[in-house]
């Protein structure tokens, strides 16, 4: 794989730009940062699929397209299957000698939001991972169904308010824990699984490169701060993401071959989760006295998870 330089952000950001700037994503949306990092980290040809969602509806509205690469969208749930179907065709045609340029290096990548990854497309993703295709699935996790106006997903954390898990006089918002998609994907025995964040752009680009280089099905969950549904100022996307990674609400780590866990970012100063929650409108109600216990619960969960990650890293199993 042709790896591009990731030493300098300015240089990196202008490299091999295959997602055109003219798209309809919200100002401050992290999706385009993540997608562009993926596309900038390799010079190989890309066959990309997207599930229905914010990314898809914002980048391929006929007669326009933002994709300067092969791209396909079928439905809400089946981007993993679409791109692995294409990967199967690549193998068949390569064997038969019907490719126009059989030596052109190519990588297969699927994008989905948390709605299509954690929920409606879960079965399709699991099937594609199990079948062992050579592809990378990237989840743009903004923890809600943002494309349809902010309903709960199984990636929505405890305490966040969404239109279908609302905070009110009798509710503090979502009551259920976020699904641990990274652990589930690692349990598929995938050769490379990671959770990455665009504020730590070097580790993200390196993780993407690792996934693209690794043969077999790879999965990466990326934190994509959502200005409209998390409710923060569009200029604060990276700031909010910094708070997410520094509070360990989103730990950055990788799991190799289903078991070897490496923590990729250790905050020098771990901040209390309260600081992260306070930066977003979706958690405002938690600061009422009657909901303080929820913040305590969130902190407790974070501490326990971080402890678990560290022990697993230490144990090397």
């Amino acid at each position, binding site marked *: 794989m042709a790896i591009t330089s990731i030493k300098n952000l300015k240089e990196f950001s202008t490299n091999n730009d295959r997602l055109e700037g003219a798209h309809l994503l919200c100002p401050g949306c992290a999706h385009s940062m993540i997608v562009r990092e993926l596309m900038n980290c390799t010079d190989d040809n890309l066959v990309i699929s997207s599930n229905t969602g914010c990314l898809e509806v914002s980048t391929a509205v006929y007669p326009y397209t933002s994709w300067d690469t092969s791209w396909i969208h079928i439905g809400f749930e089946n981007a993993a299957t679409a791109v692995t179907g294409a990967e199967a065709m690549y193998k068949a045609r390569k064997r038969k000698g019907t490719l126009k*340029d059989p030596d052109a290096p190519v990588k297969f990548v699927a994008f989905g939001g948390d709605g299509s990854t954690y929920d409606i497309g879960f079965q399709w993703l699991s099937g594609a991972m199990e079948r062992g295709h050579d592809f990378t699935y990237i989840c743009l996790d903004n923890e809600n169904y943002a494309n349809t106006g902010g309903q709960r997903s199984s990636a929505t954390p405890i305490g966040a308010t969404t239109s279908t898990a609302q905070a009110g006089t009798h509710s503090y918002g979502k009551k259920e824990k976020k699904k641990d998609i990274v652990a589930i994907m690692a349990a598929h025995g995938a050769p490379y699984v990671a959770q990455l964040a665009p504020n730590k752009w070097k580790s993200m680009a390196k993780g993407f490169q690792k996934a693209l280089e690794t043969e077999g099905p790879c999965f990466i969950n990326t934190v994509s701060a959502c200005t409209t549904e998390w409710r923060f100022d569009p200029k604060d996307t990276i700031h909010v993401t910094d708070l997410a990674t520094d509070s360990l609400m989103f730990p950055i780590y990788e799991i190799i071959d289903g078991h070897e866990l490496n923590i990729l970012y250790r905050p020098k100063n771990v901040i209390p989760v309260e600081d992260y929650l306070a930066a977003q409108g979706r958690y405002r109600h938690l600061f009422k006295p009657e909901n303080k216990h929820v913040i305590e619960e969130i902190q407790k969960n974070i501490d326990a998870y971080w402890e678990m990650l560290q022990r697993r890293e230490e144990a090397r199993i």
Partner: protein
Amino acid sequence: MAKEFELNEVEVWDGNYAASQALRQAQVDVVAAYPITPSTPIVEGYGSYVANGYIDGEFVMVESEHGAMSGCVGAAAAGGRVATATSSQGFALMVEVLYQASGMRLPIVLTVVNRALASPLNVRGDHSDMYLGRDSGWIQIDAFDSQEAYDLPLCAFRIGEHLDVRLPVMVHQDGFTTSHKAQNVYPLKDDVAYKFVGDYVPVDEMLDFTRPVTHGAQTEEDWHFEHKAKQHKALMDAPKVIDEVFAEFKKLTGREYKRVETYMMEDAEVALVLLGSSVETAVLAAKQLREEEGIKVGIVSPRCFRPFPYDLIREALDVPTLKAVCCMDKSAPGGAMGALFNEVSAAAYSTNARPMITNYIYGLGGRDFAVDEAKRIMKEQKAHADAGHITTNIQQFSGLRGPKLGFYETRRS
């Protein structure tokens, strides 16, 4: 390079095996599939050809039929020949992606072994799944026996992949009555069959990196209508290519296929319109009734279910002697007349003969349709013809246990 499969001049194949041999001879690049009774042997067949070197393609065993058609769409967009098979619930699960495949103009071939839809769960043959697909934008061709289950997929690749068509094609056969019934089949030699189907010509393929393409874009009120109209036009223009391919196939094999098959319609006084394996039964019954009682019965069968051959049906029914027609639907009508009744009636309305038309629902969930029952229905049509009006309800059920059911009363002027 795939090995040649040695075939006898005459083979004894059931419909499933016949279809799988057609897929092999077309050297399908990718089959993404999920097994379901009664179509499972088609994809098992493809799997065995891959495992034994008779095909160079990729066999992708996905986790559901929705996944199967999704994989087919991704594979087809990557510029190669794609096929799969399904039935019934699997077909129903695929429906979302069927619309997407046709909207994206990807010439996938789907061999459908027709089976009832639950509930109640039933594995036997009827046309519920076939009818479910009728608005999905696919070409639908119906095979009535094993030979046709072999011939028509070969034609289907030619039709769907034709640059003037570029649409997905379903080839139907009846569950069990065709799929599991062994009959004599005359196959083509591998090289002859492949030559007939031809090399796949990629269009807007995702693996040509010199020309990036976007597949599956979004359109709203500004463009959606134009896209759907264009898609409909492609379907409506397809008969030209279908007829050409059928003509070429006849030249090669001597076997003739028409978009509407007619039997003994030249002097018919009454006629049955029906699909699938029942056609053979109906033709036999008609011949016997002509001999035994002198009732002039004809049979009309839309071989091409979509695009619906309105003009050819009208032509087939525009027989001056024709008085009464019974349209037989092998699918639960769900609170309406059967689909075949509605579509055939529309075509018959503009004939000069303008025959009386009634509707029978029959054969649901694999209920047998035998010669005696066909004769009874034909005689009933003769009674309508003699009386000069419909003597029963317009819609009835054939072969049903319990009290007789009839719906939609006729109006006598």
